[in-house]
């Protein structure tokens, strides 16, 4: 019997405790974060699953909780991600400027996230939403760039203020802040405005197309653990709001009879499709592995949006399953890249190469993560992408289908780039001595994540069952799942069978390999170079401009959104400067002039 409020208060106190412990000894402070987040995850998962979470409130005023399947689903996932990533804190915390503050903010943002998922009152939802924003805000500048924090704040505030506006409109209609009743009481044009505003909030938090500029900057430059938490955990807040906006509220606008979809669904699907295409194209051309993974989580955010907006049983379950698969895969990938950057100090692929020789386990973790991200069968990513494809095809949305297919094949391209340029290939001399396998405690979370990725790929029915509860609660017909099979709208899938058949195939290939003569082991520098004698590894490692011919095709259009927001910022600065130079000179006569003008306006009707 665990009370949610107790858990949240415990996490906040643990945060403060970790601050003081951190002041004494940095690593001890971060160990506190591990213990706290593991405790929170275990209690939420265990008690939540056999629903013994009581939601009474004694300490926190004005905050009321309620356990919904939707909230529980997201809470378990995000706390799991926080717990796994916290294993990395002790190893990275020495490098940061304010280590104690880092541990405290880490746990405070966890508390905020819990609050968001479990509250049933919109105002406290907004309270926790903003609380997460500013606690995670101060974690970002500990990484490489300071500008990322302000752009993160700007875009997520746009999102949260849109959410606030919608909350107040709903309060006018229903009179209370309660989520369920206020969502139900809104209809007609008010419902349209509310769902549009909630969609803006979801777009801002997910980093989808119009508001996507902050995601690559933040995930690319923030400290390694934090970018993993962002892409695995904090982005899922956007997904949570997206479920509220797109699934709970009915779509509005002109309904196309051929496919039965409303105009709003088309708009959001189109934006989701644009996010996928934009994310994929930008990810293909990145040289920094972390920026590449940032754009990949942006493109996966696009998948979630497309899935949720179609709101059919296959698509919503596919979308939610994609939330799980993407969270696991991108966290594992970020942690792997973080492990590499901890040892070599850089994540730029042009400066790295051949890390597999010293870090095989990290390599395997990254391999399993990218198989899931690319949506290849034995891993979880395939199931969710299969479900989303079923829905897109069933609704016959052709252009969205083009973007979805392009995104899934493109994801294979850009996830493969770090694998080839960073892990495989020649081992560069400057990294040969210094690099060694990541310490045991860093490998533990990575291996757990890979195990889960494989599990969600081979036996998805446990998770799909849980998602079905969420579906029934959200008001969508649940997915038909047998003991081992998953039936989409136009096909049946047995993931266990695929995995076993794949296993049989590999077994046959292995037998062929073992039977034949053993090959002669040869170093990497003994390769075919048309007879030239080679002595330098850098020349023989192909990593810079990996997809040069493809990148050349769209080089001119890469920073459309970035320029748009830069011009917007300049407009505001020009307005400010104009006002400053006009009004604020030490000449009182301008003030008198304006007084006369105002008096003129007032007296216009009567005397003049």
């Amino acid at each position, binding site marked *: 019997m665990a009370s949610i409020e107790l858990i949240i208060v415990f996490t906040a106190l643990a945060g403060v405790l970790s601050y003081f412990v951190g002041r004494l000894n940095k690593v001890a402070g971060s160990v506190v974060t591990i213990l706290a987040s593991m405790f929170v995850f275990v209690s939420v998962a265990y008690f939540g699953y056999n629903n013994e979470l009581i939601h009474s409130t004694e300490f926190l005023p004005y905050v009321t909780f309620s356990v919904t399947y939707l909230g529980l689903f997201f809470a378990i996932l995000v706390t799991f991600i926080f717990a796994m990533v916290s294993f990395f804190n002790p190893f990275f915390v020495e490098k940061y400027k304010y280590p104690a503050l880092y541990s405290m903010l880490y746990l405070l943002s966890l508390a905020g996230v819990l609050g968001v998922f479990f509250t049933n009152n919109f105002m406290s939802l907004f309270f926790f939403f903003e609380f997460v924003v500013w606690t995670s805000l101060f974690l970002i500048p500990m990484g490489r760039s300071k500008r990322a924090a302000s752009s993160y704040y700007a875009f997520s505030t746009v999102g949260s203020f849109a959410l606030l506006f919608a909350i107040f409109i709903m309060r006018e209609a229903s009179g209370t802040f309660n989520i369920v009743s206020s969502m139900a009481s809104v209809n007609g044009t008010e419902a349209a405005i509310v769902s549009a505003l909630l969609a803006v909030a979801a777009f801002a938090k997910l980093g989808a197309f119009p508001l996507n500029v902050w995601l690559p900057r933040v995930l690319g430059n923030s400290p390694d653990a934090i970018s993993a938490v962002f892409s695995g955990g904090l982005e899922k807040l956007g997904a949570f709001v997206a479920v509220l906006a797109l699934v709970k509220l009915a779509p509005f606008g002109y309904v196309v009879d051929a496919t039965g979809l409303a105009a709003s669904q088309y708009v959001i699907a189109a934006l989701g499709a644009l996010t996928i295409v934009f994310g994929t194209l930008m990810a293909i051309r990145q040289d920094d592995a972390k920026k590449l993974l940032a754009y990949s989580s942006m493109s996966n955010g696009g998948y979630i949006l497309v899935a949720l907006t179609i709101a059919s049983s296959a698509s919503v379950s596919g979308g939610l399953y994609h939330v799980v698969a993407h969270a696991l895969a991108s966290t594992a990938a970020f942690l792997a890249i973080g492990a590499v950057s901890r040892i070599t100090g850089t994540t730029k692929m042009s400066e790295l190469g051949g890390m597999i020789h010293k870090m095989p386990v990290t390599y395997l973790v990254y391999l399993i993560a990218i198989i899931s991200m690319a949506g290849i069968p034995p891993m979880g990513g395939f199931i969710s992408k299969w479900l989303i494809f079923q829905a897109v095809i069933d609704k016959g949305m052709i252009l969205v289908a083009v973007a979805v297919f392009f995104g899934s094949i493109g994801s294979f391209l850009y996830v493969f780039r770090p694998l080839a340029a960073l892990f495989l290939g020649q081992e560069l001399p400057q990294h040969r001595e210094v690099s060694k396998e990541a310490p045991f405690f860093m490998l533990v979370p990575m291996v757990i994540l890979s195990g889960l990725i494989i599990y969600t790929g081979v036996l998805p029915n446990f998770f799909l069952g849980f998602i079905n509860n969420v579906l029934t609660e959200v008001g969508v017909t649940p997915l038909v799942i047998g003991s081992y099979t998953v039936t989409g709208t136009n096909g049946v899938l047995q993931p266990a069978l695929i995995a076993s058949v794949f296993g049989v195939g590999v077994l046959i290939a292995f037998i062929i390999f073992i039977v034949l003569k053993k090959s002669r082991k040869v170093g990497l520098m*003994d390769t*075919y170079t048309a*007879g*030239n*004698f*080679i*002595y*330098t590894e850098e*020349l023989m490692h192909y990593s810079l401009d990996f997809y040069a011919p493809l990148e050349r095709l769209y080089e001119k259009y890469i920073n459309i959104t970035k320029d748009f927001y830069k011009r917007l910022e300049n407009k505001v600065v020009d307005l400010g400067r104009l006002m400053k130079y006009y009004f604020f000179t030490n000449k009182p006569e301008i003030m008198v002039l304006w007084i006369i003008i105002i008096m003129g306006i007032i007296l216009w009707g009567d005397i003049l």
Partner: protein
Amino acid sequence: MLSTKFTKLSKEEVDRKWWEIGDFFRRNSLWMLMYCTGCCAIELPPAMTSAYDMERLGMGPMATPRQADVLLVTGYLSLKTLRRLIYTYEQMSEPKYVVGIGSCTINGGIYHDSHAVINQLNRYVPVDVYVAGCMPNTEAVMNGFVDLMGLIKTKKANGWKDYHARNEWYMANQKAALGEVKVHDEFHE
């Protein structure tokens, strides 16, 4: 009711049987390495195209030494080419064969008195078949290939074993002629 008693074959007999089967495949699909060192290389295109069509014998050009079985040394071998040839030869997968085409590989040919050309190929690399002639006719080249297939069939084409067996002798010859095989050059550092 013949009682076909199954005689238990010893280990090396089984290997020999497998090796013969392997020989059958190896001689019927000889892949030659597209590495033309000298002027006799002009004889190869007619061997590939419709006039003589070496593909009938299962032979075809391959891009890299790893994949190729036959190394064709066509024409005179200067010192610099010899270094690259030895490096490529060592990269080929085993069992591998060398065919020396043109009299320059046999006794230095018209360049026998040049300071840059070696006079006898098989001192540096084991050669299985020579095709004489200062630019032998295409039939002669095709005939050379058929001879090579015959040698493989009669298990005489084991130049690559000889390279392992008398490795010091080959190394000594190479050192005598070339100085040392692997050299640094300013353009590939």
